[in-house]
């Protein structure tokens, strides 16, 4: 039964930004429900403003809707004002396109962009009157699936999700919908469907596996419970980015969302190999879109949406092989229409003066650099491969270009970090201030704002630091106090963060199935939207850990041995464990690893491509 929008009128008028809940935007996809076979609710476990800014969400929405017998609709977590209005009035969570309650959908798919959304996933199922535990959903109706970067360690959500889609979803998701359609028409039971679904590369059904533990709490075995179920799940990748699906339209929100612009994706993967970076490892092998494809896609989307901002998305945009030519081509589209071209993710060491000048032609913006660590020693440990000379050159160039505002991103709590490394963050920030005043007065602005931000390192699966212990709260507080002390008298600000959320993030990132009970407790206590500081409740987490007998230190602050079975070991993410170990050892000895453009480093991810090659060369198979 669809929800009548007129019945929501009073509720909508009582909340902030009611247009978050009405749908009806340009290019939303509306189909006739009688003409479709599979109805897919694509759930984003955060509010509209965030969801509509997510490129992956746009791509997969379009990819499913390309098929005329599937209908993908959007469902998001409401802001607490509207959430309360819904529950007070007994209205279930509904889709924006057809206003259909969540529990009426065939497939309910979640994208897991960050760990702190896990409680929101459960909350949305609750708001939609869908049973939380997968074993409580007997039939094929309400099949709950999840994908996205956090699906690479699916275990903390294993008891709630029927299928995880690991890797890239453009083709995988439509294959899954096709199989689902066959299963429903063929009258299959759920178990048969789950088993069959695992023949699709990257699909994992947690109900078909069992985890056993040692007395010390580590995993002793992870095994299939059924014959014919694979022991290893290989992530799915798209082979060719030029021919891969990419939407020709995108929904144009009425309200101001976080990233209100056209975004094009330059490449997947990253040549750099920073040892803390999960995306840099997960997205390998490197695959590049051509300048022609990118220009065409940008042009189509700018024309149909009317956006006045074009953003280039990748893990390190200045590493795009033909970046100068690409920017020239894009400027031909944007400059005369006064469209702003923005380029996040620039590296300090390789963007040129010409490039900087080009991208600030329409509108000037702040420059943000991420040295990540203050000292050269620690930057070598994390393989950031950025030197003080690089920082000097980039900052000088940016100041001479008229910029008076630079943001510097650092992390504290990185492996092997000492107090000297922490103090070096202040030294480097002071150095950037000095660079500003060394620039000729006629060339620079009069005032400068340097803002340094020190976030807290969270070790992530599938990185060379996946075995590391996160700093304890005490260690973090000590380092933050030291930082604040060292920043006194420097013409730069330092922003630090409360470590409580990072600690929970660390627990969830490397958690196992024993965390399901904790998440369930959290959802019972009403937890959701926890990536928002105002809704993060550390007392509730402590209570849930206590009640479930789960020790958070075991997950966050324990150093693992190289031989330990990790909860995500059954997933083949491309990059081999052997490579990650080698990189961890290089980190301890402060040895840097060259980037892929300088020569292959043998990470193993290229195995996943058809020709065994990534776009940077031939990788030996490990």
């Amino acid at each position, binding site marked *: 039964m669809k929800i009548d929008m007129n019945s929501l009128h009073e509720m909508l008028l009582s909340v902030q930004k*009611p247009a978050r809940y009405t749908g009806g935007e340009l290019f939303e996809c509306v189909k006739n429900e009688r003409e479709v076979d599979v109805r897919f609710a694509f759930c984003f476990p955060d509010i509209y403003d965030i969801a509509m800014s997510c490129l992956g969400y746009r791509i997969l929405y379009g990819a499913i809707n390309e098929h005329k017998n599937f209908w993908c609709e959007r469902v998001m977590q409401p802001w607490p004002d509207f959430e309360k209005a819904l529950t007070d009035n007994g209205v279930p969570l509904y889709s924006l396109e057809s206003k259909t309650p969540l529990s009426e959908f065939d497939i309910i798919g979640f994208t897991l962009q960050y760990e702190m959304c896990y409680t929101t996933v459960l909350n949305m199922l609750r708001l939609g009157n869908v049973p939380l535990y997968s074993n409580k959903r007997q039939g094929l109706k309400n099949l709950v699936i999840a994908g996205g970067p956090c699906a690479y360690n699916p275990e903390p959500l294993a008891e709630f999700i029927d299928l995880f889609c690991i890797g890239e979803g453009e083709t995988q998701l439509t294959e899954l919908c096709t199989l689902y359609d066959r299963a429903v028409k063929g009258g299959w039971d759920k178990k048969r469907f789950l088993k069959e679904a695992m023949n699709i590369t990257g699909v994992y059904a947690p109900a078909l596996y069992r985890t056993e533990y040692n007395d010390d709490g580590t995993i002793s075995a992870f095994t299939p419970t059924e014959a014919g179920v694979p022991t290893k799940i290989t992530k799915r990748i798209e082979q060719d980015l030029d021919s891969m699906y990419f939407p020709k339209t995108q929904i144009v929100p009425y309200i101001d969302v976080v990233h209100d612009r056209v975004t094009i994706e330059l490449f997947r993967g990253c040549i750099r190999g920073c040892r803390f970076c999960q995306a840099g490892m997960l997205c390998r092998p490197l695959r590049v879109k051509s300048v022609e494809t990118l220009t065409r896609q940008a042009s189509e989307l700018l024309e149909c949406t009317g*956006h006045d901002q074009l953003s280039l998305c990748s893990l390190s945009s200045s590493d795009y092989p033909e970046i100068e030519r690409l920017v020239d081509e894009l400027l031909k589209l944007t400059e005369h229409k006064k469209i702003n071209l923005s380029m996040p993710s620039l590296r300090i060491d390789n963007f040129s003066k010409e490039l900087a000048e080009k991208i600030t032609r329409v509108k000037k913006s702040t420059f943000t650099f991420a040295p990540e660590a203050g000292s050269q020693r620690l930057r070598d440990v994390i393989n950031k491969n950025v030197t003080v000379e690089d920082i000097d050159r980039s900052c000088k160039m940016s100041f001479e270009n008229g910029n008076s505002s630079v943001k510097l991103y650092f992390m504290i709590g990185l492996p092997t970090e000492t107090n000297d490394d922490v103090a070096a963050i202040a030294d480097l920030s002071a150095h950037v201030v000095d660079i500003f005043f060394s620039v000729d007065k006629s060339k620079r602005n009069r005032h400068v704002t340097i803002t340094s931000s020190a976030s807290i390192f969270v070790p992530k699966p599938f990185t060379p630091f996946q075995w590391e212990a996160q700093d304890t709260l005490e260690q973090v507080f000590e380092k933050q106090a030291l930082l604040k002390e060292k920043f006194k008298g420097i013409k730069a600000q330092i922003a630090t963060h409360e470590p409580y959320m990072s600690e929970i993030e660390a627990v969830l990132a490397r958690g196992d199935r024993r965390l399901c009970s904790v998440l369930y407790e959290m959802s019972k206590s009403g937890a959701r939207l926890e990536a928002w500081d105002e809704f993060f409740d550390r007392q509730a987490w402590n209570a849930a850990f206590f009640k479930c007998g789960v020790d958070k230190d075991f997950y966050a602050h324990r150093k693992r041995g190289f031989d330990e079975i990790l909860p995500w070991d059954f997933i083949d993410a491309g990059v081999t464990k052997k490579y990650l170990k080698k990189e961890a050892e290089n980190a301890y000895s402060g040895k840097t690893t060259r980037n892929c453009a300088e020569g292959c480093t043998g990470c193993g991810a290229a195995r996943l491509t058809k020709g065994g090659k990534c776009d940077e060369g031939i990788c030996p198979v490990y």
Partner: protein
Amino acid sequence: MKEYVPFTDVRAVFEKTGAAKYFSHLDLTRTVSRALRRSRLDIWMTEGFSPRPHLVFTPPLSLGYESVCEIMDFRLNLGAELDKDAFISSFPPALSIKDVYFPERKLKEIEYAGYTLTLRADKPAEQISALFSAPVMLLKKTKRSEQIVDITKFIKSLDLSENNGIIKMSAVLSCSGSESLSPAYLISALAENGITAENISVCRTAFYDGTMNIFR
């Protein structure tokens, strides 16, 4: 002698209905700017720090109100062609364009706006009519002041009808730069005088000049 300007003014009349009644005036300006870009017309842009189309609208609608008569003025670069079809097709359904033309009068000449209010009330239509036939004193807020005034001063005309328990109020209210009244005051007047109204919907239906001719 007319001053030289590098642009041509264009006026469009549009509806703000359906989903569009739930977004604010600020969202409207952004949505219209995008629609103008999509239309590929040669729009005159402001020459400031962040270039954008020059847009002037009739007074903002409150959130939740619909309209079938909103007006916006924008500018084309001098000599640019006005492709009406391209313009009309670039707007989303909730903001459908009813007319587009070169204006001869300024928006300042608008004096009144007509509204239709439909609602269910616990008192008959006659009682509501009677209420507004005498002075109705309410606290009226403007940007500059707050004072208790007789709101009927700003009511040019008010007609009521009732059909199957649904009351329809057709009101023409002041809507000029110096004097204006939101239909929200009519609703608060009901509440202040012990009349409970439910299922209220408001729609702006027309703009008028000082002689009560439809403004164009």
